[in-house]
């Protein structure tokens, strides 16, 4: 009401009608910069108690952005109607576009650019960083390990997820079973690192505290330091952690898809004498094929970028390095921006075909 009133008053005075929007723009911008700037400085420089700091940070982060939208909308309500109509969509989508351009799109091109420069980023070296990746022994090992991760990890997650989804569908305690298998997805990779490091723990003496070595000892075997000394099989022990975490993800999505297989098809097959294994391979798998492709894609992309597990368990040592840990080592420890950028771009290039394949598939099947 107030705004309408103001507008009417303004209409009477033609000169100030042009000036007023400008004034509001300046005031709104100033207020935003002042408020957000001072909160930022308070958080950065103010000697606050941790709890106070957390509360202010949470409140600011949560309400602050809504306040920006609100004030900008209030601002353009003073603009001439024609302008306001044109500007309004950009207040809604502008911040998203700005952030994505600034923090994702442009950085990608900058990284591509940097990958053609040397370690300090000053001399153009062409493709030699990429040549280095595929000739240097340790980086080649990282590429090779990533490949093993992707193939073994994805295959195990997808097949186990599928089997468990089918089993759970036919069991008497579907909900509980699914919760248990799915639970690790809520656990961080670092947390999972602790959990599994404890399982692989090795003691030179008689009392093993790690479950794996205790089992090995029980059956008369020799306890070992699984994740450090048993090369190259230690990679396998790390991949098991991924399988433990991601199988639940595959299972939940497959489970939803399996529920979509029409019951009458299954019944008809059973009446025709097909056993459950035939039904699984001949009906269920073809029926949920697109879901299998989607889940496989997701896990492949996820596994290509695997970082946390390796970093936490071995720090990329003992022959377990993968592309993402090598990226971190090169960039942040060796300060080699050229190789670091090239490794990042290698990840991007590896991810692209997988996504395009998936998109083509989705287009064909769903008319997307």
């Amino acid at each position, binding site marked *: 009401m107030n705004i309408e009133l103001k507008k009417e008053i303004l209409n009477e005075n033609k000169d100030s009608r042009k000036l007023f929007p400008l004034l509001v723009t300046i005031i709104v911008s100033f207020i935003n910069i002042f408020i957000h700037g001072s909160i930022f400085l308070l*958080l*950065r420089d103010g000697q606050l108690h*941790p709890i106070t700091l*957390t509360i202010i*940070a949470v409140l600011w*982060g*949560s309400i602050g*952005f809504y306040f920006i*939208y*609100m004030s900008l909308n209030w601002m353009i309500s003073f603009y001439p109607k024609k302008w306001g109509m044109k500007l309004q969509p*950009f207040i*809604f989508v502008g911040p*998203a*576009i700005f952030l*994505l351009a*600034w*923090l*994702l*799109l442009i950085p*990608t091109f900058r*990284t591509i650019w940097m990958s053609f420069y040397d370690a300090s980023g000053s001399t153009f070296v062409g493709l030699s960083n990429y040549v280095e990746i595929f000739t240097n022994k340790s980086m080649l090992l990282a590429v090779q390990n990533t490949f093993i991760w992707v193939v073994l990890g994805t295959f195990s997650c997808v097949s186990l997820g599928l089997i*468990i989804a089918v089993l759970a569908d*036919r*069991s008497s*305690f579907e909900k*509980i*079973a699914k919760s248990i*298998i799915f*639970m*690790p997805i809520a*656990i*961080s*990779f*670092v*947390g999972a*690192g*602790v*959990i599994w*490091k404890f*399982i692989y723990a090795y003691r030179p003496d008689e009392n*093993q505290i*790690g*479950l794996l070595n205790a089992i090995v000892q029980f059956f008369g075997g020799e306890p070992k330091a699984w994740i450090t000394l048993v090369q190259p099989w230690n990679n396998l022990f790390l991949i098991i952690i991924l399988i*433990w975490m991601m199988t639940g993800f595959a299972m939940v*999505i497959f489970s*939803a898809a399996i529920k979509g297989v029409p019951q009458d098809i299954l019944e008809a097959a059973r009446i025709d004498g097909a056993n*459950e294994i035939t039904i699984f391979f001949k009906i269920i798998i073809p029926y949920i094929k697109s879901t299998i492709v989607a889940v496989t*894609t*997701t896990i492949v992309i996820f596994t290509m970028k695997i*970082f*946390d597990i390796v970093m*936490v368990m071995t720090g990329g040592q003992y022959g377990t390095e993968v592309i*993402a840990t090598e*990226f*971190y080592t090169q960039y942040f420890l060796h300060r080699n921006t050229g190789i670091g*950028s090239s*490794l990042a771009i290698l*990840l*991007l290039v590896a991810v692209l075909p997988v*996504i395009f394949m998936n998109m083509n598939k989705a287009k064909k099947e769903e008319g997307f």
Partner: protein
Amino acid sequence: MRKNKKGKFLVNTVLIIICFIWFIPTLGLFVSSFRHVNDINTSGWWTIFPHKAWVTQETIQLSKDTDLNNSIDIEGQLVSDQQLREGYVLEENKRLKWENRLAKTVAIQEKEWVSNFSFTLENYKFVLTGGNVEITNPDGTKRIIQGDDLSRAFLNTLAVAIPSTLIPLTIATFSAYGFSWMKFPFRNVIFVSVIGLLVIPAQVALVPIYKDFMNIGIAGSYLSVWLAHTAFGLPLTTYFMHNYISQIPKDIFESAFMDGATHFTIFSKLILPLSVPAIASIGIFQFIWVWNDYLISLIFLGGIPEAQVLSMKLAQMIGTRADKWHLLTAGAFVSLLLPLTIFFMMQRYFVRGLLGGSVKG
């Protein structure tokens, strides 16, 4: 019919075994985090269950000048030093073993059903307050291990994770509304480009972002992590919210416009309340993602000890205090507590977010 019953039994059995294998790792961590520091370091967590183990019945003091190079006479039995080290089985369920080789005491042990069923909350106290713990080594000496103060890291993680969830959600909901219900030039091209940014791995953008943050002076602040998480989360949240908001019936908008409502009032008064289920689904997904993140916090907050989040602190503990299992297990559980609670309370929403957001990597 009988065949069916047998099949169901088989399915249930196999599934129980799989669930058991899946559950054991977490159970081990959980149980261990409540065990006393000396217990954790000397016995497996499964020994809390009844099992057969050697228990000392009585100790024999040998004379101080016993020659360890020759056979030793203990109650008529001749045994060597080596045999006493490994444990010399006299008869069934009875053996001799050094209690303390230097003090020349030998233990007579028998196999008995035992369980190390004792628990403590001390580990959590150490890990949350940073108090010191005194450990008695097997040889009787004592050493002191400093605890870790994770309470600060817990607060930091909250300060990182809550805004890093709400900011992208706010921006994504506004932009999803814009892309669904407003007209502007190149709308579809821009929308497809936004979704296309899903393919970009975080690693590709991290370093240029970091450089920019250094240049404008926000590096190392919470704001920098929020912005990074927002950028990496936006394509997916926008996609998810667009799927939902674009499905809202058109008549709702038309009647609202007739009443003279603006886009902003429609958004705040109508669309936001209607979108709560979708926001909850993708919000839980994003929150757990951010809470568990390690790489992004490591790069943007890595250099500032007082701003460390739980995942970093825990990873650091794994690196530097690998044998301090009492701290690691309790610390890991502190970091898991919140995501696991949310997971079990809101599993339905979480699954919905996952089904919609399964493209994220």
